[in-house]
């Protein structure tokens, strides 16, 4: 049966990001608490996060989540007040509860009851407080049955009953006491001030007072106090009535007149967006709306490109015409504005990479526990911004790389000490912008990749002959770890085993027009560097003509485009190559390798070669003609994944025609380079 909560769809858009943000704060805080110990400010932050989650859960009627957050908050409150200190069991209970909270929170969206036994977790949390003397108020409720002492003169006896369900009845008693003090002289009362201050539950307040107010006036005044069920005011000395007079339901006030004015309050933030700088005004909007804006901008870019092409095709006819000059100016201006618009829209979709990095402290902590390794996780450049689609897409590959570093890179404490290193290994995550791309690195100071072991594994698995393995350069051998089914780890641990293989990591990164490179030093460690575009929505590409087809080679892969006299292309071992400065560049004829229609290629005096790069490898793509650079608009990531080997989908060009996008990594595999 689906579970429903008291929350409207439009509220959900505020609720979920905020709850997730609080969960993240809680996780970050607990990680820091476990690592660096308690400090007052940290405990306040953690406590507030649990408290805010409790408030949110309560507001939508999520009872299990409320109870669990309440138990967490109670443990944290004791920590905050110094009643006890942390213990490993306490941290496990808190982190286990945090995991459960994520599942409970999902229920709000899925409406499916999760498999969380919150009672077990609440008990695990409460055990931590067992040795602490309970500060909780006594269970007994003070109900004075008789007046403490008779009042004299024109005194009045006031009896007020408080709703037994009131969660803060002592505070109600205090409100009653203060109200009566304002109406005359309150001679004595039960409970007395000290009892009230001790926050003891109170079901009835009885006071003796001297006043010139009438009983009705006093009843009227006390009616303003919430949770008051009955008030009786009798002259001193008279017996109490059996039942005090019921209090009129909240005194009648004139109904507020409806009015549409609402202060234009720029509080709040766009969903899951980074906190705006102080003083910046923000509005809230939906991801869908921003995506629509992005798509429209994409259409505009396509039209702009088309306009530029139309302009250049009418140029021979109209050059010198003043109307034509106007057209040139206008199209150029339009191009500039479109660029700026695109940049601004892109910026709206940017998020700091911390939104991907922030799950790593917890992951590494759990991995360290599971492997018995000591790990110090460091992160740099968390503020580096990139498109949210890229963040979503790289999150899983990054998780795998970190798992890989912990599992295969870092040694255990004994092995590290034996190798003359500190017992604690380091995993460093960094992010930075470089030439319009983002570079994310995962670095460890572990044992490094054993090149000979990788080669031996490839030979053992029949991928390479001994001779082929021996002929491999160091880089080529290291890149073998990206081949499917090759792993040098003797036993696949349950850590790496749970994830995908490095081959999948690489192909996922490459699908995003990214690349991954390895730098490793035996005994010193390994660095994986992932280079990605800042967005997946727009791919700058070099357009080329192959047979009758227009192909787009993503610019990030392009090293340079060259015109090469035919005689400079030689054959080594039957394969065409050319010399590019110091290097030998294998050549692949794009039309042949892709089996594009258009027939046999004619011999020509010179070839156009696009030198492309994949990791540390390079090769030359021989094409018929170079057309020029253009920005291709990609609407969905899936359109980057083509069915034809060597192509990565298609894009619509400015002139309305379709261009195939070259899949450079796929071409390296096809070309056997």
């Amino acid at each position, binding site marked *: 049966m689906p579970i429903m909560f008291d929350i409207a769809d439009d509220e959900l858009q505020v609720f979920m990001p905020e709850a997730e943000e609080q969960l993240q704060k809680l996780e970050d805080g607990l990680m820091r608490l476990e690592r660096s110990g308690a400090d007052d400010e940290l405990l306040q932050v953690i406590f507030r996060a649990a408290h805010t989650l409790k408030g949110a859960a309560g507001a939508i009627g999520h009872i299990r989540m409320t109870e669990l957050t309440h138990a967490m908050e109670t443990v944290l409150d004791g920590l905050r007040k110094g009643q006890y200190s942390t213990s490993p069991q306490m941290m496990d209970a808190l982190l286990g509860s945090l995991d459960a909270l994520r599942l409970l929170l999902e229920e709000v969206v899925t409406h499916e009851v999760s498999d969380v036994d919150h009672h077990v977790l609440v008990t695990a949390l409460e055990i931590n407080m067992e040795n602490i003397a309970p500060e909780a108020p006594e269970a007994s409720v003070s109900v004075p049955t008789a007046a403490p002492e008779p009042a004299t003169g024109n005194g009045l006896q006031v009896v007020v009953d408080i709703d037994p369900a009131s969660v803060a009845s002592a505070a109600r008693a205090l409100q009653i006491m203060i109200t009566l003090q304002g109406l005359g002289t309150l001679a004595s009362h039960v409970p007395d001030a000290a009892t009230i201050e001790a926050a003891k539950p109170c079901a009835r307040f009885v006071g003796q007072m001297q006043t010139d107010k009438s009983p009705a006036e006093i009843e009227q005044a006390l009616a303003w106090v*919430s949770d008051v069920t009955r008030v009786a005011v009798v002259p001193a000395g008279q017996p109490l009535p059996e039942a005090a007079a019921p209090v009129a339901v909240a005194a009648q*006030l004139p109904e507020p007149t409806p009015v549409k004015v609402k202060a234009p309050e720029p509080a709040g933030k766009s969903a899951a967006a980074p906190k705006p700088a102080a003083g910046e005004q923000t509005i809230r909007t939906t991801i869908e709306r921003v995506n629509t804006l992005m798509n429209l901008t994409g259409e505009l870019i396509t039209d702009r490109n088309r306009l530029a092409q139309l302009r250049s095709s009418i140029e021979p006819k109209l050059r010198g015409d003043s109307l034509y000059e106007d057209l040139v100016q206008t199209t150029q201006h339009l191009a500039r504005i479109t660029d700026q618009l695109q940049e601004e829209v892109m910026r709206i979709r940017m998020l700091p990479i911390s939104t991907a990095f922030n799950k790593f402290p917890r992951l590494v902590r759990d991995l360290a526990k599971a492997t018995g390794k000591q790990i110090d996780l460091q992160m740099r450049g968390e503020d580096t911004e990139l498109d949210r689609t890229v963040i979503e897409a790289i999150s899983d590959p990054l998780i795998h790389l970190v798992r890989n570093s912990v599992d295969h890179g870092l040694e255990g404490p004994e092995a590290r000490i034996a190798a003359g290193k500190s017992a604690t290994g380091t995993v460093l995550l960094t992010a930075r912008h470089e030439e319009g791309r983002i570079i994310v690195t995962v670095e460890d100071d572990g044992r490094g990749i054993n090149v000979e072991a990788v080669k031996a594994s490839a030979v053992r698995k029949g991928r390479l002959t001994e001779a082929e393995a021996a002929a491999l350069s160091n880089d080529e051998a290291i890149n073998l770890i990206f081949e499917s089914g090759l792993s040098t780890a003797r036993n696949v641990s349950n850590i790496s085993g749970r994830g995908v293989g490095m081959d999948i990591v690489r192909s996922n990164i490459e699908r995003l027009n990214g690349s991954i490179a390895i730098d490793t030093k035996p005994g010193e460690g390994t660095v994986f560097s992932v280079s990605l575009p800042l967005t997946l929505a727009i791919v700058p590409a070099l357009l080329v003509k192959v047979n009758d087809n227009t192909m787009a080679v993503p610019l990030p892969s392009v090293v340079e485009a060259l015109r090469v006299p035919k005689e400079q292309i030689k054959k080594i071992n039957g394969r065409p190559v050319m010399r590019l400065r110091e290097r030998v560049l294998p050549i692949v004829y794009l039309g042949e390798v892709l089996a594009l229609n258009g027939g046999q290629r004619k011999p020509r005096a010179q070839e156009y070669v696009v030198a492309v790069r994949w990791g540390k490898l390079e090769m030359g793509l021989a094409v018929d003609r170079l057309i020029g650079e253009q920005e291709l608009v990609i609407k969905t990531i899936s359109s980057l994944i083509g069915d034809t080997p060597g192509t990565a989908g298609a894009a619509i060009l400015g002139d309305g025609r379709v261009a195939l996008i070259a899949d450079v990594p796929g071409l390296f595999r096809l070309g056997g380079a």
Partner: protein
Amino acid sequence: MAKILVVDDAEFLRVRITKMLTGNGHEVVEADNGAKAVAKYRENRPDAVLMDVTMPEMDGLAALKEIRSGDPNARVVMLTALGQESVVLEAIKSGARDFVVKPFEPDRVLAALKRALA
């Protein structure tokens, strides 16, 4: 109709309370911590304040005292949670008109506001 300052660090709760108040014809000003609440109070002179307790920067109790020292007639209703009895007592002593315990029924907040505004 009254002008109400809604103070809570949880945006979701502000959205929900604001919706309820504007739906009942009130005008709303929001603040997400105690320090901003004090500033907004001075700026807007609202008829009443709904004040959360646990907030970053400045908590609700400190903001209540600050607001009441600037305006001894300020009508402040505290939004408290289970387990905050001692805070509530302190708030009442510091001049809070009333308090509503979270999670609250909308009627309770409206009733407490009515009483505070009377």
